[in-house]
């Protein structure tokens, strides 16, 4: 495959044409924070955590393909500030009560707040009144903890092929829905596979019967599954 030369954090790197900036950075061991990205699923640039500076312009590294001569900066004060503000907005938009959450200590959002050094949320909390749906026999979706990363939507369509999950509404009214907005328990296409549970980065989609801090997820299972299918 044709290789392209780019400069990433001052270092000249050759990578196959068609690679994304995130892929190249990960191959080089350069850390870029991500949230909606998961190896094995398509990228949508939804959460905006993986932003980088390309020739002075801020772009999402998971959806931007490399181009010859590109100058990429993965971390500086401006990027750190933008990422932290973005993270604060995500926290402020829903009700993330870590202390009461089944995913406490096993949450990608909680980890990111530590990694990025988020001291507090400066933007006012929205504290929206949101529902949860426990009609499925095995699983629960709690909209209070959903960050709209869309991993459930993608895993259900791309890996399971069931197309149960979708997103309805716009902006702060956006919600993940099952089928055309029916209760999850009435979603006839759901195969009960639980892949959406494993890839959900927070405590939004969880197994029933878990108490605080008991929900441990394994998104890497989906990555492995995808790799094995490709190698067969």
């Amino acid at each position: 495959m044709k290789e392209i030369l780019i400069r990433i954090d001052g270092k000249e790197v050759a990578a196959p044409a068609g690679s994304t900036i995130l892929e190249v950075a990960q191959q080089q061991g350069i850390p870029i924070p991500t949230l909606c990205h998961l190896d094995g699923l398509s990228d949508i640039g939804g959460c905006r955590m993986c932003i980088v500076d390309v020739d002075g312009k801020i772009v999402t590294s998971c959806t931007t393909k490399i181009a010859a001569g590109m100058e990429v900066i993965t971390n500086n004060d401006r990027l750190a500030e933008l990422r932290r503000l973005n993270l604060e907005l995500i926290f402020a938009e829903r009700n993330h009560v870590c202390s009461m959450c089944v995913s406490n200590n096993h949450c990608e959002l909680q980890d990111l707040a530590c990694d990025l050094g988020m001291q507090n949320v400066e933007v006012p909390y929205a504290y929206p009144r949101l529902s949860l749906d426990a009609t499925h026999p095995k699983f629960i979706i709690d909209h209070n903890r959903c960050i709209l990363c869309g991993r459930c939507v993608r895993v259900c369509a791309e890996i399971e092929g069931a197309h149960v999950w979708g997103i309805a509404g716009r902006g702060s009214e956006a919600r993940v829905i099952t089928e055309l907005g029916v209760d999850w328990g009435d979603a006839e296409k759901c195969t009960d596979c639980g892949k959406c549970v494993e890839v959900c980065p927070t405590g939004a989609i969880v197994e029933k019967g878990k108490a605080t801090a008991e929900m441990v997820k394994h998104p890497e299972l989906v990555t492995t599954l995808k790799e094995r299918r490709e190698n067969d």
Partner: protein
Amino acid sequence: MTKVRVATVWFSGCAGCHMSFLDLDELMIDLADRIEIVKSPVVDTKEFPANVDVTLIEGAIGNEEHVELVREIRKRSKIVIALGDCAVTGNVPAMRNGIPVNELLEEVYGKERTTTGTIPNEVVPRLEDRVCPVHEVIPVDYFLHGCPPPAAVIGKALLALLDGKVPELTGRELKFG
């Protein structure tokens, strides 16, 4: 040596952060030589004193008394620390946000729940419409995360301040929950 004047207050919270503070164990003995607790739920002083060096605030702002007192605390304290998730984020007390206060009081104290159905509106302070973290009412200098913050984190922050340094908390020391 003049002792550093430290106060702790308890707003909408469960006292767990104060329990964690007491969990400082033997560090408490070292601290006792350097600090004086001038106001705290465990000290019998009614009024919040003047000229406090460091005030640790546990709990979210949930009623009109909290709002009034926290403003007074800011005026009388050099350094204000939000102690724990309720003070930093609103946490559990803020889970009532979105429910109109009159509906909430009716649900808890109304005729359906109690024999008299009397809503308490005398002596006790009026609830705010919305519970909020401390920094939405007054400027806060430092934030100690956790429900409760581990004693080691509280100790690290206090020792840094006593040495005239900025508390440098990183990684898991910043974990909520």
